[in-house]
């Protein structure tokens, strides 16, 4: 691909689950495995969320839109989704969307998170953090942290239980979520009840073995990952100067993080980053739960939620959230 002559493409890889392999015949036309910078305009069209009404359907959910101050005071949008009807102060989940740091919007890949609102009687805050490469680190991360500070400050007004905040994200959004949790710890920010990391994008250094195993397979390969990190960090990618808030795998001390849930597929580039991060969470004395789904490609629950493997993944994730959120 890039002429370096490495044998990455010929590394034996674990097999894909057959249902997911079939799903890729459809998915591949919308989300190709290899995303190069030239493909970003295409991805922004193909990964744009579908109309909000289709996402929510006939669920009894109220949406309010808010403008808040992101990094350096710039105005960014956020939406609060909550169940219809008055009630007690509700737990709240800050949702950080997927899209490789370069595409997607605050409703991309949100279908499964919308389920949580009625299932757990909670609120969901989803934020339009600014995207790379137009906005490099720390803009996306600080936008997300500002959203956390905002929802904490506005908790009483919006009916949130400020003692029960979960930060959740998928893929690039999960990397941002982990960065936000580290910053909340370091800056004495809001107390978090939980951190939900779906197949997180954590490390710009790209040294994990799993990064070399899946060239051209699934929906996010080594080249895509390099494209995403370069968009966020520019020439700093892979150098010593990268902040752990941008690439949480670089944090030397993970102690004091909230209970954390991590899931990942065995057939994806983030497999080793995710399992390593879980191991380090345990090492540093945290409550962490890790699920590796055999034969799963990146974000298979978003693209093929009907499959046996995705249903298992969704069940395990919801079960953990229920333990964290339910009275």
């Amino acid at each position, binding site marked *: *691909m890039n*002429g*370096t*002559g*490495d*044998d990455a*493409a*010929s590394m034996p890889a674990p097999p894909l689950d*057959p*249902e997911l*392999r*079939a*799903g890729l*015949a*459809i*998915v*591949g*036309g*919308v989300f*190709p*495995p*290899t995303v*190069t910078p*030239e*493909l970003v305009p*295409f991805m922004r*069209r*193909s990964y744009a969320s*579908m109309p909000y009404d289709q996402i929510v359907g006939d669920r009894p959910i109220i949406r309010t839109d808010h403008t808040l101050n992101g990094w350096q005071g710039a105005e960014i949008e956020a939406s609060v989704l909550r169940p219809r009807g008055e009630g007690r102060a509700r737990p709240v989940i800050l949702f950080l969307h997927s899209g490789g740091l370069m595409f997607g919007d605050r409703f991309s890949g949100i279908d499964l998170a919308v389920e949580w609102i009625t299932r757990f009687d909670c609120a969901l805050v989803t934020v339009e953090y600014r995207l790379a490469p137009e906005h490099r680190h720390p803009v996306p991360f600080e936008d997300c942290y500002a959203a956390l500070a905002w929802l904490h400050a506005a908790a009483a007004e919006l009916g949130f239980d400020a003692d029960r905040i979960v930060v959740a994200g998928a893929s690039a959004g999960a990397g941002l979520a982990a960065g936000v949790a580290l910053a909340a710890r370091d800056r004495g920010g809001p107390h978090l009840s939980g951190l939900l990391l779906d197949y997180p994008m954590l490390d710009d250094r790209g040294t994990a073995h799993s990064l070399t195993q899946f*060239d*051209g*397979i699934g929906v996010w390969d080594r080249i895509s990952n390099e494209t995403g990190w370069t968009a966020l960090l520019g020439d700093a990618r892979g150098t010593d100067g990268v902040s752990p808030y941008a690439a949480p795998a670089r944090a030397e001390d993970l102690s004091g993080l909230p209970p954390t849930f991590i899931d990942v597929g065995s057939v994806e580039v983030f497999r080793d980053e995710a399992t390593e991060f879980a191991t380090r969470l345990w090492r540093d004395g945290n409550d962490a739960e890790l699920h590796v789904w055999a034969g799963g490609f990146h974000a298979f629950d978003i*693209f*093929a*939620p*009907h*499959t*046996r493997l*995705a*249903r298992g993944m969704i069940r395990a994730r919801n079960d953990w959230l229920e333990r964290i959120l339910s009275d």
Partner: protein
Amino acid sequence: MQELLGRLRALDPGAVISLRVIACFDELIVGGVNSQALLSAAASLTGCVVGFSIDSPARAMRVSPQGEQLAGDALVPSDVRLKWSDGALSVWLEREGDPHANDALIIERLSLALRVRYDRSGSADPRRDLGLMVDADVDEDRRFEAAARQGLSQSTRYRFVVAPLFATWRTHPAAREDVISTSSGPLHTLIVQQTTTTVEAEPVGIGQAAFVSDFPRAFRTAVVALRLTQLPDTPVVLADDYGGLLDVLAELPAGYEPADVPAVASIAGHPWGPVTLDALVRTASVREAARVAGIHHSTMTTRVQLVTETLGFEPLDGVGRLRLGLAYLLWRLHRSSTLTLPAPVDGNARTS
């Protein structure tokens, strides 16, 4: 996935979505997934509840677009376009209103997959005519019958054109086409006249011209040609350009590790390796190779010494030149990721 089909259509109005649906079910059949998984895929693709029933062993199942089994009575539609039955096995979509564009195809593929799963009759061979014609294990009579059904003449030569599902097509030739499952994944396959020696698509392999009796080999030459493509420099490979070499490549058994290839792989592991090997194979002298590779003559001389040491033979003399050329092609075949890599999107239509 219904949503994804809609997205595909919006991104590329010319997309041949049916080929993707066919490939999806081919993979499910090859993967040996169970009934619920088959129904889940159909339900997810159509966005409505899908059911099936079978008389022996007696069972019935309804599955939602989320893949969950549903209790309750089946709402079998009255519209005959939304169901299929052979008397013993029935399949239906619980759709209100008229069928959608791909419903008929999805019902057909689902019923076939279920028949294969329950091994109900010899008629449930999941392979279609193109797949039968290129399989050397299928006896010749069946291959000829399949060719006759496709209106192919036994006294005319044809070529196979193969491409991954992710290929980009600038123009789509009118031809018999289908998806054929191979060990490397589903391949979009077309049969064209022997005079067709290029196609406006990338990446794509065009096989040698052959009579129906020789289709299995002809198809293999097309697959090898596809694996020799390299984007963006070599988007189309015509088997004829490699002549008898391609015959050799097409006949090698899977998993065979030929001599000299590990040495070539080792050379290719250097940053300068691939471009040097490519230049040496394409040219007649060190000086010319240096020019093609865009480096100084003395640099190429040094590299040739390193190449010679690694190979253990002279790469530019007589039989040594043949050995290097063949090993280089085999190495390219071995590391080819053409079948799984998508073509870069440049705003043009991606079909199939």
